[in-house]
């Protein structure tokens, strides 16, 4: 349990085609319950979603796939930070 708490989290930024607050609502409602996703931050003007996730439980390909299944593009997808 202690190991899980201390596990490093990763952050990835996807560039999407979202265009409104309703898009962020949809993405948050769906991605919040994807395994391993810990946090989401949206920037509508830049059309980006920053995803904080547990790399032991998911990876950028799965997260990008989840975005695409919602009908959004998901370009980028490179890890930008690692948080402890």
């Amino acid at each position, binding site marked *: 349990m202690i190991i899980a708490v201390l596990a490093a989290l990763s952050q990835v930024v996807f560039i999407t085609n979202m265009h409104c607050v309703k898009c*962020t609502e949809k993405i948050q409602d769906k991605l919040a319950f994807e395994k391993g*996703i810990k*946090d989401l931050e949206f920037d*509508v*003007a830049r059309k980006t979603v920053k995803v904080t996730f547990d790399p032991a439980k998911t990876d950028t390909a799965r997260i990008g796939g989840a975005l695409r299944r919602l009908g959004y593009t998901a370009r980028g997808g490179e890890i930008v930070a690692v948080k402890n």
Partner: protein
Amino acid sequence: MRGLLFISVFLAAGVSAAAQAPPDTVGMYGEKRDSLAASVVQASAPGNFRSRGSVGSVEVITSSGLYKMACCNLADSFENSASVSVGYTDAVTGARQIRLLGQSGIYTQMLDETRPTMRGIGGIFGLNHIPSQWLESIKTSKGVSSVLDDNEAITGQINLEYRKPMDEKPLFLQASVMSDTRADLNVVSSLQPGRNSRLGTVMMGHISGNFVDFDHNGDGFLDDPRGLVAAAGNRWRYESPSGVLWHFGANAVYDRSRGGQMPSMGESRWKSSVENLSLGGYAKMGVPLSADLSRNFAVVADYTYHELRGRFGAAFWHAGQHSAFVNLLFQHYVSDVHHYTLGLSETFDAFSQFFNGARKDAILSNAGLFGEYTFTPSHRFTMIAALRADWYYCDGVKVTPRLTLRWEPWEQLVLRANGGRGLRHAFPLADNIGVLSTSKFHDAEAIGMHLLEDAWTFGGSLSWYLPFDKSGKTVLSFDYFHTRFTEQGIWDNSERDYRFYSLSSVAATGQKAYSYAHNFQVDLSSEPLRGFTLAATFRYTDARQTRIGRESDIKPMTSLWKGVINLQYATAMRKWIFDLTLSVNGPCKVWEFMEAGYKNGYTPVYPLLFAQVTKRFRGFDLYIGGENLTNFTQRNPIIHASDPWDGRFDASCIWGPLMGAKVYAGVRFTLWKI
């Protein structure tokens, strides 16, 4: 950008011009809610906020705000607002009315996506007929706003934005039940045939009711009437390949309620029964007149029929109202600096009323010609100058000037000023149905009185975006508004008589005649920690009105002040949300004949506490909460409850809650389009 502006024109841009300017991100451009100019870095939408970019002073309650409480209907939606207070008109019928800027809600123009709504008879129970779960946002504009949607706004406008036909939610379900057996069920479905469709529809259904009789205070009267509300709505949006945009829809509401003395009191008991039926339809068409969408034309047409059949003790009131509204608008964006709107409108109401067998029919109509000019020399300054001239059936020509200014001297400070005239016809019984829950109303002639109410409102606000918060979420705001009537309908209550007369008739007696209110409000909102938001508001009102033969000019039954604190904490990705709202309601002066029962003639200060916990799961939310957790209720809300057939019976003197603590539980299910 002009495309978005075109949509705003189409939406009968009165509010969009004066109150909802570009940087707003919620509910502004119909389906495309955010301007691309708006940089939104967020994890969640705030529940209530002051619109930063609007030219006028606008407070927005978003869908998140509507989820903070049980919020079964529109009346419940203002519980965490200090600007808007909601109270029962009486202790019998369940009708509720808002107050804004120290004046009755009849002076606040209600708009359904910028079309005037809830007027006259439709306004009596209107707050109970609009399910909160159908709404996407509520925008309250203080002051006189735009002239494009008629000129009835005197203290402000409340614009209701509904869930949209193009929403990607094929199914939304909500159900809740309260400990007093009040229950409600809502279904909303937004459908479009395929992706990138030009056509969309939203279907909305609602049913709610109170199913058990309660008399907790032992006065022999039901605390809340038993009743049933059923409502349905269907809205469409279609954009043709040529760019012509259509919105059209229809709605229906049926409501019946039974109140009065408990059934156990026998057949001779004092009973009230009210049935409402409302049917309506509307169409809007927006036509681009130039390829760059700088010139546009829009037509808005709306029709509503409302019927009310009521029995109140020995009194019977049967009223019907046909209402029609037509608006023609031409808008020209000359440049980024100048744009103007010109238009014609017609508002028509035909009333038929039977009161205790006497028939009172009336036609109320005004046709207007208007123009509104917007000057934006820089993003830091906007001026909207508006003028309309209306010909009133029976009252001649009236001119309505209005001016709104927004100035941002530097990035952290926004100053606003607003002023102008408002006019509305009085509907004496509809404006104060509480009078029928007394045994003191004997003047049947009053209900047919023709009176055009006339007032001027001036005010402004200062919003300071505190510089130590980079997110811009810490805002301190100060508002001041003053409303002064030159003509007004006045209801005056005494021990054995409830009278209606005009402000000008006060002057005719040789007394000083005036009616005004000063309103001051301070708001602080902040997000000190991510996920933790705080909003605190304090409002002070000084409302004065002279009445025939009265010494005091303090307006009775108007609360002097109200404070509200709302705290919300949401965990990451809002899987758990905790809401707490505390309001403290200041005293109000009671009617003269009630003074013996109240210390210094004022009601006591009382607190109200609301709390809710929401747990979100994949696809659905569960929530539990409590209302009025301080369990405060107005003592003896019905005067002479023991003998309602006595000439002193009065159930209209309501200043506090009628029901004590209640708990509730509910579920929301959302299916997203994939």
